């Protein structure tokens, strides 16, 4: 990619569709692989996006995942019109979860989603209004942290 070139892709995440959960993350991962981003960076982006995608399916009745890819960084924006998060600081705590039991049986809903998104990304912003929706913006620099 040249310095001025940016790419943007958008995926719609269907409500409650656990069979397709992860398709947006998978599509973004494949795109980043084609561009030639380091595998460690792609892995962090894929995991962060997947956690957000699962949250949207579990809690928000679907939403939109957008990836803005620049030469040096990727920004993932995940937005929904769901119930919102009443206490964001609480949601950032490991182990805090409001996910129903059927989600836990699928191996999710352990209250690790938002903490893991914070861990994977270089910067995370969250804007949430109760009964209106939530928007999570994650910034990832294309820097391989493992080989440093």
């Amino acid at each position, binding site marked *: 990619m040249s310095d001025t070139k940016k790419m943007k892709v958008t995926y719609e995440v269907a409500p409650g569709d656990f069979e397709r*959960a992860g398709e947006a*993350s998978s599509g973004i*991962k494949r795109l980043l692989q084609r561009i030639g981003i380091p*595998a460690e960076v792609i892995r962090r982006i894929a995991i962060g996006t*997947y956690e957000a995608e699962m949250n949207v399916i579990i809690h928000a009745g679907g939403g939109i995942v957008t990836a803005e890819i620049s030469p040096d960084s990727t920004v993932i924006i995940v937005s929904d019109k769901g119930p919102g998060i009443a206490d964001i600081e609480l949601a950032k705590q490991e182990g805090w979860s409001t996910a129903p039991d059927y989600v836990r049986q*699928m191996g999710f809903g*352990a209250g*690790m989603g938002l903490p893991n998104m914070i861990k994977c990304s270089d910067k995370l912003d969250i804007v949430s209004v109760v009964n209106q929706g939530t928007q999570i913006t994650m910034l990832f620099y294309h820097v391989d942290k493992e080989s440093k």
Partner: protein
Amino acid sequence: MINLNQVCSKLDAKILLGEDQLDREVISACGADLMSDVLTFTKRKTLLLTGLTNIQVVRTAELSDLCAIVFVRGKLPGKDIIEAAKANDIPLLVTCYTLFEACGRLYEMGIKGCPHKVFADE
């Protein structure tokens, strides 16, 4: 170096997918039914042992760049799960050992846990 073929023998495992990938190196492993933990704590190329057989296991392995999946307690995944793994080049094994026993057998071979330990500030 330990490869998938040796893992397969040690676990008396049946290969559901990836017969041609048995030379893949296995450096570390993780035993879990909680995919949230797998997504949070594992590193690339980790072998996953699990009792869950749903589509999220394959997604987790795909997005986390895991080495392969071993289903424990003889649990067989559905055709759709096998197809999803095939599309993503993820070998699938099934063993009749329990999760604890299967992990113990691999540890005995010299495969270490990934992560070894989780610290409170991680």
